[in-house]
Protein backbone atom coordinates (compact mmCIF):
# COMPACT_ATOMS: atom_id res chain seq x y z
CA UNK A 1 0.00 0.00 0.00
CA UNK A 2 1.40 3.36 -0.97
CA UNK A 3 1.08 6.27 1.42
CA UNK A 4 -0.73 9.33 0.12
CA UNK A 5 1.70 12.10 -0.65
CA UNK A 6 1.37 14.75 2.00
CA UNK A 7 2.87 17.78 0.33
CA UNK A 8 4.15 20.58 2.41
CA UNK A 9 1.20 22.85 1.98
CA UNK A 10 -1.56 20.31 1.52
CA UNK A 11 -4.12 20.47 4.30
CA UNK A 12 -5.32 17.08 5.49
CA UNK A 13 -9.05 16.64 4.99
CA UNK A 14 -11.13 13.85 6.43
CA UNK A 15 -13.98 12.61 8.56
CA UNK A 16 -13.56 12.57 12.34
CA UNK A 17 -13.72 9.44 14.47
CA UNK A 18 -14.21 10.67 18.00
CA UNK A 19 -12.68 8.99 21.06
CA UNK A 20 -12.45 9.86 24.75
CA UNK A 21 -9.57 10.40 27.20
CA UNK A 22 -6.69 8.02 27.98
CA UNK A 23 -6.87 5.89 24.82
CA UNK A 24 -3.93 3.62 25.67
CA UNK A 25 -1.62 1.68 23.40
CA UNK A 26 -3.23 -1.64 24.33
CA UNK A 27 -6.53 -0.29 23.00
CA UNK A 28 -4.85 0.99 19.83
CA UNK A 29 -3.13 -2.35 19.27
CA UNK A 30 -3.21 -5.05 21.95
CA UNK A 31 0.00 -6.67 23.17
CA UNK A 32 -1.30 -10.13 22.30
CA UNK A 33 -1.34 -9.14 18.62
CA UNK A 34 1.85 -7.12 18.74
CA UNK A 35 3.59 -10.16 20.17
CA UNK A 36 2.26 -12.68 17.66
CA UNK A 37 1.91 -10.76 14.38
CA UNK A 38 4.65 -8.81 12.61
CA UNK A 39 2.86 -8.33 9.27
CA UNK A 40 1.41 -4.81 9.23
CA UNK A 41 -1.54 -5.65 6.95
CA UNK A 42 -2.64 -8.31 9.36
CA UNK A 43 -1.78 -6.34 12.49
CA UNK A 44 -3.72 -3.24 11.46
CA UNK A 45 -6.91 -5.29 11.17
CA UNK A 46 -6.94 -5.21 14.99
CA UNK A 47 -6.42 -1.45 15.34
CA UNK A 48 -8.64 0.20 17.98
CA UNK A 49 -10.35 -3.16 18.44
CA UNK A 50 -10.62 -2.71 22.19
CA UNK A 51 -12.89 0.31 21.63
CA UNK A 52 -14.61 -0.39 18.32
CA UNK A 53 -14.40 -4.10 17.41
CA UNK A 54 -14.88 -3.54 13.64
CA UNK A 55 -12.95 -0.26 13.46
CA UNK A 56 -10.48 -1.38 10.78
CA UNK A 57 -13.30 -2.57 8.52
CA UNK A 58 -15.35 0.60 8.81
CA UNK A 59 -12.45 3.02 8.69
CA UNK A 60 -11.92 4.79 5.38
CA UNK A 61 -8.44 5.89 4.29
CA UNK A 62 -7.97 9.56 5.02
CA UNK A 63 -10.33 9.62 8.00
CA UNK A 64 -9.06 11.39 11.11
CA UNK A 65 -8.85 10.36 14.73
CA UNK A 66 -9.98 12.92 17.28
CA UNK A 67 -9.47 12.16 20.96
CA UNK A 68 -9.36 13.67 24.42
CA UNK A 69 -6.49 13.81 26.87
CA UNK A 70 -3.44 11.56 27.01
CA UNK A 71 -3.89 9.78 23.67
CA UNK A 72 -1.46 6.86 23.26
CA UNK A 73 -0.56 6.45 26.92
CA UNK A 74 1.08 3.22 28.00
CA UNK A 75 3.66 1.26 26.11
CA UNK A 76 6.39 2.55 23.80
CA UNK A 77 5.20 0.25 21.02
CA UNK A 78 5.68 1.98 17.72
CA UNK A 79 3.15 -0.45 16.29
CA UNK A 80 0.47 1.83 17.78
CA UNK A 81 1.02 4.80 15.44
CA UNK A 82 2.15 2.39 12.70
CA UNK A 83 -1.15 0.52 12.47
CA UNK A 84 -3.00 3.85 12.37
CA UNK A 85 -0.77 5.15 9.60
CA UNK A 86 -1.08 1.86 7.76
CA UNK A 87 -4.87 2.06 7.87
CA UNK A 88 -4.57 5.49 6.29
CA UNK A 89 -5.30 7.76 9.26
CA UNK A 90 -4.78 11.29 7.93
CA UNK A 91 -3.94 12.77 11.31
CA UNK A 92 -4.56 12.29 15.00
CA UNK A 93 -5.88 15.35 16.81
CA UNK A 94 -6.03 15.13 20.58
CA UNK A 95 -6.33 17.40 23.55
CA UNK A 96 -2.96 15.99 24.64
CA UNK A 97 -0.68 13.07 23.81
CA UNK A 98 1.41 10.71 25.87
CA UNK A 99 4.97 11.69 25.06
CA UNK A 100 6.33 8.47 23.55
CA UNK A 101 3.30 8.12 21.25
CA UNK A 102 3.77 11.70 20.10
CA UNK A 103 7.47 11.17 19.33
CA UNK A 104 6.74 7.89 17.56
CA UNK A 105 3.99 9.44 15.44
CA UNK A 106 6.31 12.20 14.20
CA UNK A 107 9.15 9.74 13.62
CA UNK A 108 7.04 7.47 11.43
CA UNK A 109 5.38 10.40 9.65
CA UNK A 110 1.90 10.25 11.16
CA UNK A 111 0.66 13.83 11.72
CA UNK A 112 -0.25 14.36 15.37
CA UNK A 113 -1.57 17.69 16.57
CA UNK A 114 -2.68 19.01 19.94
CA UNK A 115 -5.89 21.01 20.01
CA UNK A 116 -7.68 22.35 23.08
CA UNK A 117 -11.06 22.50 21.37
CA UNK A 118 -11.54 18.83 20.53
CA UNK A 119 -14.73 18.84 22.59
CA UNK A 120 -16.26 21.06 19.82
CA UNK A 121 -15.71 18.27 17.30
CA UNK A 122 -18.37 15.56 16.89
CA UNK A 123 -18.05 12.08 15.49
CA UNK A 124 -18.41 12.28 11.71
CA UNK A 125 -17.54 15.99 11.34
CA UNK A 126 -15.51 16.83 8.26
CA UNK A 127 -12.24 18.50 9.25
CA UNK A 128 -9.35 20.16 7.48
CA UNK A 129 -6.04 20.12 9.32
CA UNK A 130 -3.46 22.67 8.28
CA UNK A 131 -0.28 21.84 10.17
CA UNK A 132 1.68 24.81 8.92
CA UNK A 133 -1.01 27.35 9.62
CA UNK A 134 -1.64 25.64 12.96
CA UNK A 135 -5.37 25.34 12.33
CA UNK A 136 -8.14 22.79 12.26
CA UNK A 137 -11.16 23.85 10.22
CA UNK A 138 -14.41 22.14 11.08
CA UNK A 139 -16.13 22.15 7.68
CA UNK A 140 -19.33 20.61 9.06
CA UNK A 141 -19.75 23.20 11.81
CA UNK A 142 -18.11 26.15 10.07
CA UNK A 143 -15.61 26.70 12.90
CA UNK A 144 -11.83 26.90 13.23
CA UNK A 145 -9.63 25.81 16.10
CA UNK A 146 -6.00 26.51 16.83
CA UNK A 147 -3.54 23.65 17.18
CA UNK A 148 -0.32 23.83 19.18
CA UNK A 149 2.41 24.67 16.65
CA UNK A 150 4.75 21.79 15.90
CA UNK A 151 8.47 22.57 16.39
CA UNK A 152 9.93 23.38 12.93
CA UNK A 153 12.55 20.60 13.17
CA UNK A 154 9.84 18.04 13.93
CA UNK A 155 7.54 19.41 11.26
CA UNK A 156 10.30 18.80 8.75
CA UNK A 157 10.62 15.15 9.80
CA UNK A 158 6.85 14.84 9.51
CA UNK A 159 6.63 16.52 6.12
CA UNK A 160 9.32 14.23 4.75
CA UNK A 161 7.37 11.19 5.86
CA UNK A 162 9.26 10.26 9.02
CA UNK A 163 12.82 9.75 10.20
CA UNK A 164 13.66 6.84 7.87
CA UNK A 165 12.67 8.83 4.80
CA UNK A 166 14.50 11.83 6.18
CA UNK A 167 17.73 9.86 6.45
CA UNK A 168 17.22 8.33 3.00
CA UNK A 169 16.78 11.79 1.52
CA UNK A 170 19.49 13.68 3.38
CA UNK A 171 21.94 10.86 3.98
CA UNK A 172 22.15 11.65 7.68
CA UNK A 173 20.15 12.28 10.82
CA UNK A 174 18.99 15.85 11.49
CA UNK A 175 21.57 16.39 14.25
CA UNK A 176 24.38 14.90 12.16
CA UNK A 177 23.62 17.46 9.46
CA UNK A 178 23.55 20.35 11.88
CA UNK A 179 26.87 19.53 13.48
CA UNK A 180 28.38 19.03 10.04
CA UNK A 181 29.12 15.36 10.61
Amino acid sequence: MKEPNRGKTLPIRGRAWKFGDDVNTDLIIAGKYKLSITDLDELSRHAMEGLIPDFAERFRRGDLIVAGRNFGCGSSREQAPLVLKHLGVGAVIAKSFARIFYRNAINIGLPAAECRNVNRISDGDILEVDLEAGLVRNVTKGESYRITPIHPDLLQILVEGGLINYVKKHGALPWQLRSGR
Partner: protein
Amino acid sequence: MAGVGKTISEKIFSAASGRDVWAGDLVVAEVNSAMAHDGTALLAIEAFEEMGGTKVWNPSRVALFLDHVAPSSNETFSKVHKRMRRFAFKHGIPLYEVGSGVCHQLMVEEGYVRPGELVVGADSHTCTYGALGAFATGIGSTEMAAVFLSGKLWFKVPETLKIEIEGSLPPFVTPKDVALRVIGEVGADGATYQAVELHGSTIEEMSVEGRLTLCNMAVEMGAKTGIINPDEKTYSYLSQLGLNPGRGLSSDPDAQYAKMLEFDVSSLEPQVACPHAVDNVKPVSEVEGTPVDQVFLGSCTNGRIEDLRLAAKILEGKVVKRGLRMIVTRVYLQALREGLIETFVKAGCAVCNPGCGPCVGAHQGVLAPGEVCLSTSNRNFKGRMGCTDAEIYLASPATAAATAITGRITDPRSVVRA
Protein backbone atom coordinates in the same frame (compact mmCIF):
# COMPACT_ATOMS: atom_id res chain seq x y z
CA MET B 1 19.91 32.31 35.07
CA ALA B 2 23.03 32.81 37.16
CA GLY B 3 22.54 31.97 40.79
CA VAL B 4 19.65 29.66 40.10
CA GLY B 5 20.09 26.01 40.88
CA LYS B 6 19.47 23.09 38.56
CA THR B 7 17.50 19.90 38.90
CA ILE B 8 19.33 16.60 38.52
CA SER B 9 17.64 16.22 35.12
CA GLU B 10 18.89 19.61 33.92
CA LYS B 11 22.39 18.67 35.09
CA ILE B 12 22.35 15.32 33.32
CA PHE B 13 21.17 16.91 30.07
CA SER B 14 23.77 19.67 30.39
CA ALA B 15 26.48 17.04 30.76
CA ALA B 16 25.11 14.88 27.94
CA SER B 17 24.72 17.75 25.49
CA GLY B 18 27.84 19.70 26.43
CA ARG B 19 25.80 22.86 26.94
CA ASP B 20 24.32 24.66 29.88
CA VAL B 21 20.67 23.73 29.47
CA TRP B 22 17.42 24.24 31.36
CA ALA B 23 13.91 22.84 31.34
CA GLY B 24 12.23 23.62 28.04
CA ASP B 25 15.42 23.56 25.93
CA LEU B 26 15.56 21.23 22.96
CA VAL B 27 18.91 19.43 22.99
CA VAL B 28 20.82 16.79 21.08
CA ALA B 29 22.38 14.61 23.74
CA GLU B 30 24.77 11.66 23.82
CA VAL B 31 23.31 8.59 25.45
CA ASN B 32 25.39 6.31 27.67
CA SER B 33 23.49 3.13 26.89
CA ALA B 34 20.49 1.87 24.98
CA MET B 35 18.37 -1.23 25.00
CA ALA B 36 15.61 -2.92 23.03
CA HIS B 37 13.70 -6.17 23.56
CA ASP B 38 11.84 -8.68 21.44
CA GLY B 39 8.73 -6.49 21.44
CA THR B 40 10.53 -3.48 19.96
CA ALA B 41 13.90 -4.52 18.50
CA LEU B 42 12.67 -5.88 15.17
CA LEU B 43 11.31 -2.50 14.05
CA ALA B 44 14.50 -0.84 15.28
CA ILE B 45 16.70 -3.29 13.36
CA GLU B 46 14.64 -2.83 10.21
CA ALA B 47 14.72 0.95 10.54
CA PHE B 48 18.49 0.87 11.18
CA GLU B 49 19.03 -1.12 8.01
CA GLU B 50 16.63 1.02 5.99
CA MET B 51 18.55 4.09 7.12
CA GLY B 52 21.62 2.47 5.61
CA GLY B 53 23.18 1.56 8.96
CA THR B 54 26.16 -0.77 8.75
CA LYS B 55 27.84 -0.11 12.09
CA VAL B 56 26.34 0.35 15.53
CA TRP B 57 27.78 3.42 17.26
CA ASN B 58 29.07 1.53 20.31
CA PRO B 59 28.10 -2.14 20.51
CA SER B 60 29.18 -2.50 24.13
CA ARG B 61 26.70 0.21 25.19
CA VAL B 62 23.74 -1.46 23.49
CA ALA B 63 21.93 -4.47 24.89
CA LEU B 64 19.22 -6.67 23.40
CA PHE B 65 16.86 -8.77 25.50
CA LEU B 66 14.67 -11.77 24.74
CA ASP B 67 12.08 -11.43 27.49
CA HIS B 68 8.63 -10.53 26.20
CA VAL B 69 7.80 -13.84 24.55
CA ALA B 70 10.46 -16.00 26.08
CA PRO B 71 10.77 -18.83 25.36
CA SER B 72 8.88 -18.01 22.18
CA SER B 73 5.28 -19.21 22.06
CA ASN B 74 4.81 -18.91 18.31
CA GLU B 75 6.75 -19.21 15.08
CA THR B 76 6.49 -15.51 14.23
CA PHE B 77 8.31 -14.62 17.41
CA SER B 78 10.80 -17.42 17.05
CA LYS B 79 11.74 -15.68 13.81
CA VAL B 80 11.99 -12.33 15.61
CA HIS B 81 14.33 -13.91 18.15
CA LYS B 82 16.41 -15.44 15.39
CA ARG B 83 16.71 -12.10 13.65
CA MET B 84 17.77 -10.40 16.90
CA ARG B 85 20.40 -13.06 17.60
CA ARG B 86 21.82 -12.60 14.11
CA PHE B 87 21.87 -8.81 14.44
CA ALA B 88 23.54 -9.01 17.85
CA PHE B 89 26.16 -11.45 16.57
CA LYS B 90 26.88 -9.40 13.45
CA HIS B 91 27.40 -6.16 15.38
CA GLY B 92 28.95 -7.62 18.51
CA ILE B 93 26.08 -6.51 20.74
CA PRO B 94 25.40 -8.36 24.01
CA LEU B 95 22.17 -10.34 23.74
CA TYR B 96 20.44 -11.64 26.84
CA GLU B 97 18.98 -15.00 25.97
CA VAL B 98 15.59 -16.43 26.80
CA GLY B 99 15.54 -17.15 30.53
CA SER B 100 17.90 -14.34 31.54
CA GLY B 101 15.13 -12.18 32.95
CA VAL B 102 13.24 -8.95 32.33
CA CYS B 103 15.22 -6.24 30.52
CA HIS B 104 14.82 -3.55 33.18
CA GLN B 105 16.18 -5.69 35.98
CA LEU B 106 19.08 -6.82 33.86
CA MET B 107 19.97 -3.33 32.63
CA VAL B 108 20.56 -2.41 36.27
CA GLU B 109 22.21 -5.66 37.38
CA GLU B 110 24.47 -5.89 34.35
CA GLY B 111 25.88 -2.42 34.83
CA TYR B 112 24.36 -0.49 31.93
CA VAL B 113 23.16 2.25 34.26
CA ARG B 114 25.18 4.48 36.51
CA PRO B 115 24.28 7.64 38.43
CA GLY B 116 24.43 10.77 36.30
CA GLU B 117 24.09 8.93 33.00
CA LEU B 118 21.54 9.27 30.22
CA VAL B 119 19.96 5.95 29.22
CA VAL B 120 17.30 5.21 26.62
CA GLY B 121 15.32 2.06 26.03
CA ALA B 122 12.75 1.04 23.46
CA ASP B 123 10.30 0.38 26.27
CA SER B 124 8.18 2.74 28.30
CA HIS B 125 9.34 1.38 31.66
CA THR B 126 12.94 2.39 30.98
CA CYS B 127 12.15 5.13 33.53
CA THR B 128 12.87 2.46 36.19
CA TYR B 129 16.60 3.27 36.21
CA GLY B 130 16.00 6.78 37.50
CA ALA B 131 16.10 5.08 40.89
CA LEU B 132 19.89 5.08 40.50
CA GLY B 133 20.09 8.79 39.78
CA ALA B 134 20.31 8.33 36.01
CA PHE B 135 18.00 10.03 33.53
CA ALA B 136 16.35 7.07 31.83
CA THR B 137 13.46 7.25 29.44
CA GLY B 138 11.51 5.21 26.90
CA ILE B 139 11.70 5.90 23.18
CA GLY B 140 10.27 4.32 20.03
CA SER B 141 11.89 1.85 17.68
CA THR B 142 12.70 4.27 14.86
CA GLU B 143 14.40 6.56 17.35
CA MET B 144 16.29 3.57 18.66
CA ALA B 145 17.56 3.01 15.14
CA ALA B 146 18.82 6.61 15.17
CA VAL B 147 20.59 5.90 18.47
CA PHE B 148 22.12 2.71 17.05
CA LEU B 149 23.47 4.86 14.21
CA SER B 150 24.71 7.90 16.08
CA GLY B 151 24.61 7.36 19.83
CA LYS B 152 22.62 10.56 20.04
CA LEU B 153 19.04 11.73 20.13
CA TRP B 154 17.03 14.91 20.50
CA PHE B 155 15.30 15.57 23.80
CA LYS B 156 13.30 18.30 25.35
CA VAL B 157 14.75 18.94 28.80
CA PRO B 158 11.75 18.32 31.03
CA GLU B 159 10.31 20.39 33.80
CA THR B 160 10.23 18.60 37.11
CA LEU B 161 7.43 17.64 39.45
CA LYS B 162 8.90 17.31 42.93
CA ILE B 163 7.23 14.80 45.21
CA GLU B 164 8.13 14.67 48.89
CA ILE B 165 7.19 11.46 50.66
CA GLU B 166 7.47 11.42 54.42
CA GLY B 167 7.01 8.81 57.13
CA SER B 168 7.95 5.20 57.85
CA LEU B 169 5.90 2.60 56.02
CA PRO B 170 3.76 0.38 58.27
CA PRO B 171 4.51 -3.38 58.16
CA PHE B 172 3.36 -5.08 54.91
CA VAL B 173 2.86 -1.72 53.24
CA THR B 174 5.37 -1.51 50.42
CA PRO B 175 6.92 0.83 47.84
CA LYS B 176 4.30 -0.47 45.39
CA ASP B 177 1.56 0.87 47.65
CA VAL B 178 3.34 4.23 47.72
CA ALA B 179 3.55 4.22 43.91
CA LEU B 180 -0.17 3.46 43.58
CA ARG B 181 -1.11 6.08 46.15
CA VAL B 182 0.89 8.75 44.31
CA ILE B 183 -0.48 7.78 40.89
CA GLY B 184 -4.03 7.81 42.24
CA GLU B 185 -3.44 11.39 43.32
CA VAL B 186 -1.46 12.70 40.34
CA GLY B 187 -3.52 10.91 37.67
CA ALA B 188 -2.59 9.00 34.52
CA ASP B 189 -1.47 12.16 32.70
CA GLY B 190 -0.66 14.36 35.68
CA ALA B 191 3.07 14.42 34.95
CA THR B 192 3.11 14.20 31.14
CA TYR B 193 6.44 15.42 29.67
CA GLN B 194 7.78 16.01 33.19
CA ALA B 195 10.44 14.33 35.27
CA VAL B 196 9.12 13.16 38.61
CA GLU B 197 11.74 13.70 41.29
CA LEU B 198 11.19 11.77 44.50
CA HIS B 199 12.39 13.08 47.85
CA GLY B 200 11.70 12.68 51.53
CA SER B 201 12.40 10.44 54.48
CA THR B 202 10.43 7.51 53.03
CA ILE B 203 12.69 7.47 49.99
CA GLU B 204 15.83 7.83 52.11
CA GLU B 205 14.78 4.83 54.19
CA MET B 206 13.72 2.80 51.17
CA SER B 207 15.97 0.13 49.65
CA VAL B 208 17.21 0.62 46.09
CA GLU B 209 14.92 -2.25 45.03
CA GLY B 210 11.94 -0.37 46.42
CA ARG B 211 13.06 2.79 44.63
CA LEU B 212 13.23 0.84 41.37
CA THR B 213 9.60 -0.19 41.88
CA LEU B 214 8.60 3.43 42.46
CA CYS B 215 10.44 4.84 39.46
CA ASN B 216 9.17 1.98 37.29
CA MET B 217 5.67 3.32 37.67
CA ALA B 218 6.47 6.98 36.92
CA VAL B 219 5.38 6.50 33.30
CA GLU B 220 1.91 5.58 34.57
CA MET B 221 1.56 9.29 35.45
CA GLY B 222 2.79 10.17 31.97
CA ALA B 223 6.24 11.12 33.26
CA LYS B 224 9.35 11.06 31.12
CA THR B 225 11.22 9.53 34.02
CA GLY B 226 11.10 9.00 37.76
CA ILE B 227 14.36 10.10 39.34
CA ILE B 228 16.02 10.04 42.76
CA ASN B 229 19.20 11.83 43.81
CA PRO B 230 21.86 9.16 44.36
CA ASP B 231 22.97 8.54 47.94
CA GLU B 232 25.13 6.09 49.85
CA LYS B 233 22.53 3.37 49.34
CA THR B 234 22.74 3.83 45.59
CA TYR B 235 26.51 3.60 45.54
CA SER B 236 26.72 0.59 47.83
CA TYR B 237 23.95 -1.21 45.87
CA LEU B 238 26.02 -0.85 42.71
CA SER B 239 29.27 -1.80 44.47
CA GLN B 240 27.63 -4.93 45.83
CA LEU B 241 26.71 -5.90 42.31
CA GLY B 242 30.39 -5.60 41.53
CA LEU B 243 29.91 -2.43 39.54
CA ASN B 244 31.82 0.80 39.66
CA PRO B 245 29.16 3.32 40.69
CA GLY B 246 30.98 6.33 39.28
CA ARG B 247 30.15 9.80 40.46
CA GLY B 248 26.56 11.02 40.37
CA LEU B 249 24.79 14.36 40.10
CA SER B 250 22.10 15.77 42.40
CA SER B 251 19.52 18.53 42.30
CA ASP B 252 20.54 21.84 43.85
CA PRO B 253 18.52 22.98 46.86
CA ASP B 254 17.38 26.07 44.93
CA ALA B 255 16.41 24.20 41.75
CA GLN B 256 13.20 25.31 40.04
CA TYR B 257 10.23 22.94 40.08
CA ALA B 258 7.06 23.10 38.00
CA LYS B 259 5.09 21.86 40.96
CA MET B 260 5.57 20.25 44.37
CA LEU B 261 3.44 17.64 46.11
CA GLU B 262 3.69 16.13 49.58
CA PHE B 263 2.56 12.78 50.90
CA ASP B 264 2.59 11.32 54.37
CA VAL B 265 2.64 7.53 54.21
CA SER B 266 3.09 6.73 57.89
CA SER B 267 -0.45 5.34 58.14
CA LEU B 268 -0.88 4.25 54.52
CA GLU B 269 -3.10 1.21 53.87
CA PRO B 270 -2.19 -1.27 51.14
CA GLN B 271 -3.42 0.19 47.84
CA VAL B 272 -5.09 -1.43 44.82
CA ALA B 273 -5.49 -0.03 41.30
CA CYS B 274 -8.87 -1.15 40.00
CA PRO B 275 -9.88 -1.95 36.41
CA HIS B 276 -9.20 -0.52 33.84
CA ALA B 277 -6.94 2.38 34.79
CA VAL B 278 -3.75 2.60 36.83
CA ASP B 279 -4.96 5.81 38.48
CA ASN B 280 -8.21 4.21 39.64
CA VAL B 281 -6.67 3.56 43.04
CA LYS B 282 -8.47 2.56 46.22
CA PRO B 283 -7.34 1.43 49.67
CA VAL B 284 -7.54 -2.37 49.91
CA SER B 285 -10.37 -2.14 52.46
CA GLU B 286 -12.69 -0.82 49.74
CA VAL B 287 -12.21 -3.78 47.41
CA GLU B 288 -11.57 -6.54 49.93
CA GLY B 289 -13.53 -9.67 49.20
CA THR B 290 -13.51 -9.33 45.40
CA PRO B 291 -13.14 -12.91 44.05
CA VAL B 292 -9.96 -13.52 42.04
CA ASP B 293 -9.09 -16.25 39.51
CA GLN B 294 -5.40 -15.58 39.00
CA VAL B 295 -2.59 -13.95 40.93
CA PHE B 296 0.60 -12.88 39.19
CA LEU B 297 3.80 -12.19 41.08
CA GLY B 298 6.61 -10.86 38.90
CA SER B 299 7.30 -8.26 36.18
CA CYS B 300 9.79 -5.39 36.06
CA THR B 301 7.77 -3.70 38.80
CA ASN B 302 7.74 -6.40 41.47
CA GLY B 303 9.93 -9.31 40.43
CA ARG B 304 12.94 -8.55 42.59
CA ILE B 305 14.32 -10.61 45.44
CA GLU B 306 12.72 -8.42 48.14
CA ASP B 307 9.33 -8.91 46.49
CA LEU B 308 9.75 -12.68 46.41
CA ARG B 309 10.90 -12.71 50.03
CA LEU B 310 7.86 -10.75 51.14
CA ALA B 311 5.42 -12.95 49.24
CA ALA B 312 7.14 -16.13 50.43
CA LYS B 313 6.96 -14.94 54.02
CA ILE B 314 3.18 -14.71 53.72
CA LEU B 315 2.80 -17.95 51.76
CA GLU B 316 5.13 -19.99 54.00
CA GLY B 317 3.29 -23.07 55.21
CA LYS B 318 0.07 -22.05 53.42
CA VAL B 319 -1.52 -23.13 50.18
CA VAL B 320 -3.04 -21.25 47.31
CA LYS B 321 -6.85 -21.31 47.39
CA ARG B 322 -8.44 -24.07 45.34
CA GLY B 323 -9.77 -22.75 42.06
CA LEU B 324 -7.23 -19.96 41.95
CA ARG B 325 -3.87 -20.10 40.21
CA MET B 326 -0.80 -18.16 41.19
CA ILE B 327 1.97 -17.54 38.69
CA VAL B 328 5.47 -16.52 39.75
CA THR B 329 7.97 -15.52 37.09
CA ARG B 330 11.25 -14.82 38.72
CA VAL B 331 13.26 -17.94 39.29
CA TYR B 332 16.85 -17.26 39.87
CA LEU B 333 19.73 -18.53 41.84
CA GLN B 334 19.30 -16.29 44.84
CA ALA B 335 15.64 -17.23 45.20
CA LEU B 336 16.52 -20.89 44.91
CA ARG B 337 19.30 -20.62 47.48
CA GLU B 338 17.05 -18.87 49.96
CA GLY B 339 14.41 -21.55 49.58
CA LEU B 340 11.81 -19.11 48.28
CA ILE B 341 11.07 -21.20 45.21
CA GLU B 342 10.41 -24.19 47.43
CA THR B 343 7.90 -22.16 49.42
CA PHE B 344 6.10 -21.13 46.23
CA VAL B 345 6.01 -24.64 44.81
CA LYS B 346 4.78 -26.11 48.09
CA ALA B 347 2.06 -23.49 48.21
CA GLY B 348 0.92 -24.67 44.78
CA CYS B 349 2.16 -21.78 42.62
CA ALA B 350 3.03 -22.21 38.95
CA VAL B 351 6.64 -21.07 38.88
CA CYS B 352 7.83 -20.00 35.43
CA ASN B 353 11.13 -18.83 33.98
CA PRO B 354 11.98 -15.15 34.40
CA GLY B 355 10.55 -12.90 31.70
CA CYS B 356 7.57 -10.67 31.06
CA GLY B 357 5.20 -13.63 31.01
CA PRO B 358 1.59 -12.81 31.81
CA CYS B 359 2.22 -9.04 32.20
CA VAL B 360 1.80 -8.32 28.53
CA GLY B 361 -0.78 -10.95 27.60
CA ALA B 362 1.43 -12.96 25.28
CA HIS B 363 1.62 -16.26 27.12
CA GLN B 364 2.08 -17.89 30.53
CA GLY B 365 -1.23 -16.82 32.01
CA VAL B 366 -3.60 -15.28 29.46
CA LEU B 367 -6.97 -14.58 31.06
CA ALA B 368 -10.40 -15.85 29.95
CA PRO B 369 -13.49 -13.63 29.54
CA GLY B 370 -15.02 -12.73 32.88
CA GLU B 371 -11.90 -13.62 34.85
CA VAL B 372 -10.25 -11.44 37.45
CA CYS B 373 -6.52 -11.20 38.00
CA LEU B 374 -4.63 -9.54 40.80
CA SER B 375 -1.21 -8.65 39.46
CA THR B 376 1.95 -7.10 40.85
CA SER B 377 2.78 -5.60 37.44
CA ASN B 378 2.23 -2.01 36.39
CA ARG B 379 -0.71 -1.85 33.96
CA ASN B 380 -4.32 -2.92 34.23
CA PHE B 381 -5.52 -1.65 30.86
CA LYS B 382 -8.42 -3.45 29.23
CA GLY B 383 -6.95 -6.35 27.28
CA ARG B 384 -3.49 -6.01 28.81
CA MET B 385 -3.34 -9.64 29.91
CA GLY B 386 -4.68 -10.92 26.62
CA CYS B 387 -8.45 -10.71 27.07
CA THR B 388 -10.53 -7.56 26.73
CA ASP B 389 -13.33 -8.99 28.87
CA ALA B 390 -11.15 -9.70 31.87
CA GLU B 391 -10.39 -7.45 34.84
CA ILE B 392 -6.99 -6.66 36.33
CA TYR B 393 -6.27 -5.27 39.79
CA LEU B 394 -2.76 -4.06 40.60
CA ALA B 395 -1.28 -4.45 44.06
CA SER B 396 1.86 -5.24 46.04
CA PRO B 397 3.53 -8.66 46.39
CA ALA B 398 2.17 -8.83 49.95
CA THR B 399 -1.42 -8.21 48.84
CA ALA B 400 -0.89 -10.69 46.01
CA ALA B 401 0.25 -13.45 48.35
CA ALA B 402 -2.58 -12.82 50.80
CA THR B 403 -5.10 -12.84 47.96
CA ALA B 404 -3.74 -16.13 46.64
CA ILE B 405 -4.38 -17.75 50.01
CA THR B 406 -7.97 -16.61 50.42
CA GLY B 407 -9.09 -16.42 46.77
CA ARG B 408 -10.40 -12.89 47.35
CA ILE B 409 -8.66 -9.55 47.44
CA THR B 410 -7.21 -9.50 50.93
CA ASP B 411 -5.34 -7.08 53.15
CA PRO B 412 -2.03 -8.88 53.81
CA ARG B 413 -2.10 -7.72 57.42
CA SER B 414 -5.21 -9.77 58.10
CA VAL B 415 -3.57 -12.98 56.85
CA VAL B 416 -0.40 -12.46 58.81
CA ARG B 417 -2.28 -11.73 62.01
CA ALA B 418 -4.58 -14.72 61.65
